């Protein structure tokens, strides 16, 4: 073996290895909790659902029109929702975005207990007792959070807990984009 090739071999191997590591590194950042679905960039489904707290009040998809809405899917049987809720409590102070709850596959008693314990951070709450509306939105489980723009179009769907970090890195840029008119 010549002198040159004996140096070349380690150099190539190490360079290839480092190349692999760098490629992998960039893959890690990719967010797999963003579930692309056919519902994205489509108008919110039509519905008529009763409010959890005010029995006489019926909500429809029209209620999303006019402001940016975050639709948060939650349930009293979902432990992650308990973990997530303190963030929403904090977030409720934010006035230019409407935070709406979708109580998913729950009983009224338990749902109200959750709200009494955790505090109501939502402007209004859809009571989706048998999960019908959840199916319309393509909900897999709780928690999930949808961003709906002022035209009533679903712009984003997040599966899992929204933490301050998720909010900062994913939600805020998108909300700014919507505010900017896109």
């Amino acid at each position, binding site marked *: 073996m010549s002198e040159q090739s004996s140096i070349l071999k*380690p150099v190539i191997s190490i360079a290839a290895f480092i190349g692999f590591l760098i490629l992998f590194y960039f*893959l890690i950042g990719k967010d797999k909790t963003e579930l692309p679905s056919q519902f994205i960039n489509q108008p919110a489904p039509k519905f008529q659902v009763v409010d959890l707290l005010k029995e006489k009040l019926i909500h429809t998809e029209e209620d999303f029109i006019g402001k940016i809405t975050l639709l948060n899917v939650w349930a009293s049987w979902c432990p992650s929702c308990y*973990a997530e809720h*303190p963030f929403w409590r904090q977030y409720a102070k934010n006035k230019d975005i409407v935070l709406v709850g979708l109580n998913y596959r729950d009983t009224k008693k338990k749902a109200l207990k959750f709200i009494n314990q955790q505090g109501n951070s939502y402007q209004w709450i859809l009571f989706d007792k048998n999960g019908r509306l959840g199916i319309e939105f393509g909900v897999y489980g709780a928690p999930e959070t949808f961003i709906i723009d002022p035209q009533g179009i679903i712009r984003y769907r997040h599966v899992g807990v929204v933490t301050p970090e998720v909010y900062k890195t994913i939600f805020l840029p998108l909300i700014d984009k919507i505010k900017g008119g896109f």
Partner: protein
Amino acid sequence: MHAEFGNYLLVLAFILSICLSVFPLYGAFTKNMSLVYTTKPLVILFFLSLLGSFICLAYAFFIDDFTIAYVAQNSNSMLPDRFKISAVWGAHEGSFLLWVLILSGWMLAVSFIGQSLPKYSYARILSVLGMIACGFVSFLLFTSNPFERTLPFYPIDGSDLNPLLQDFGLIIHPPLLYMGYVGFAVSFAFAITALIEGEWNATWARWTRPWTIAAWSCLTIGIMLGSWWAYYELGWGGWWMWDPSENASFLPWLSGTALMHSLAVTDKRNSFKGWTLGLALSTFSLSLLGTFLIRSGVLTSVHAFTNDPSRGRFILFFLGIVVGSALLLFLFRSSKVKTKANFSEFSKDMFLLLNNVLFISATFIVLFGTLYPLFAEAFGKKISVGAPYFNAIFPIPMVLLFMLLGVGPLLNWKKHDFNKLKIPMLKIFGLATGLSLIAVWLMGTFYLWVFVGLALALWVALGAFYNLTLITRHKKTLRDKISGLSRSVIGMTLAHLGIVITLSGIVLTSYYSVEKDLRMAVGESQDIAGFRFHMKRMENIKKDNYRGSRVTFDVYKDGVFLKSMAPEKRFYIAGRQMDDRSRYRLDFISRSIHSTW
């Protein structure tokens, strides 16, 4: 209290692993015997603290301590006790604790069984394992602590173990798989120590072989159980789906198989040293790669562990250090151990070399198919490389391997007289193709791949039996013949026959499976592939942690009642998750009846 104690033990294990990576290694370099003698006590303490930590977590599951986030997410007060225990490794954090516990178990075994090793090598090997363990424990401690509490707002009840995991297969599948994955760390540590000492010879190979075979066997059983579970629980049906998570375990298996064969050559002939070293290093590296792929959230598959980028970065960093330093050591030190091999084209050595080449090509094929979609995604394209790619390419090295496998075991080391084998090999070839033709003819439809597959299977099986008769030709009675076989010959023959059975199963199920979607009502019957399915009744079932309904089918063949089958649809109360379960049974030659709904 138990959570804090478990956490404390984890921290203790972390400190012990740092001591283990430093003291014995330093002692071995400075020839300080008092440091070298710390090895075994450190390993024992390390194992005990991890065992204690694991017991604490299991206890938390047992008493339904939902203040611990991990317990709350993966258990439920209604979950049967045996599943509460298996729920300990039902998700990322707990399964990683099991992972390091198993690693410490291997280390304990090495520290006891390996006492006859030279003292300095013994210390170095366990020190290298200590470093690996240190990486894993810090990963557990800093990014995926299973003992994290959800105080002050803790759920009243847990969100239940994923119903797919509430199954016996899943209780034992991960531990065995991990034993395989982690077991290759032992061969890795042996190879690293040999490189540090600049010496890699038959003696080293003899020390490494049993550990490699043990790890390989565990991995094989683990993969098999996983495949079985996926078959009846996920309803995947076939024998192998080329799911990324399956590939992640298959990569170290392929490389480990090559390693096992290569080690045999180094052991017996003191050659193939570069190959063996490289394979020992790459097999564990592939285990780490699999860990990275599955636990970083880079791959989406059934093993969807929660996606936390900090975890992915940590494993990648760890992988970079381990594989990088192994690579550097190999590049700069392995030239010392290389020897010129000396054997003819027709010899056991040559066939094992080809075996290595083919297994390594197979590893690259699977690696490429698994990683290519990921890299394409990095460049902004979403593509999936699925079963068609693997099914088209993977059989090529495998067919060649099976052709070699029929002959290889019969050959002598170094040189074999081809003429001696010509006549028996021709006979075996004729018999294998003939029997295969008859079998395909009996099955009714001719498929080329079934014919080829069965012929290859018979070729290998008959070759293996012929080999047994050759080895025992000097013994008179059958009893003498059997007792005269060495354990290594028995092991080899069993493994090769296992491959024969696997291959036959693969080709038969791939080509003769019948799958139909039908709508049926109670009292109706349907004929499928010669069987009559009569839907007898439908009932509701009510168990502790789920409700559901069950349909009973009576299966008839030619009007004769064979068996009742009862698939179920279950609704798990706590997690609000549905689960389909199919009861199946195996008929002769794996013509399986699979009923789902």
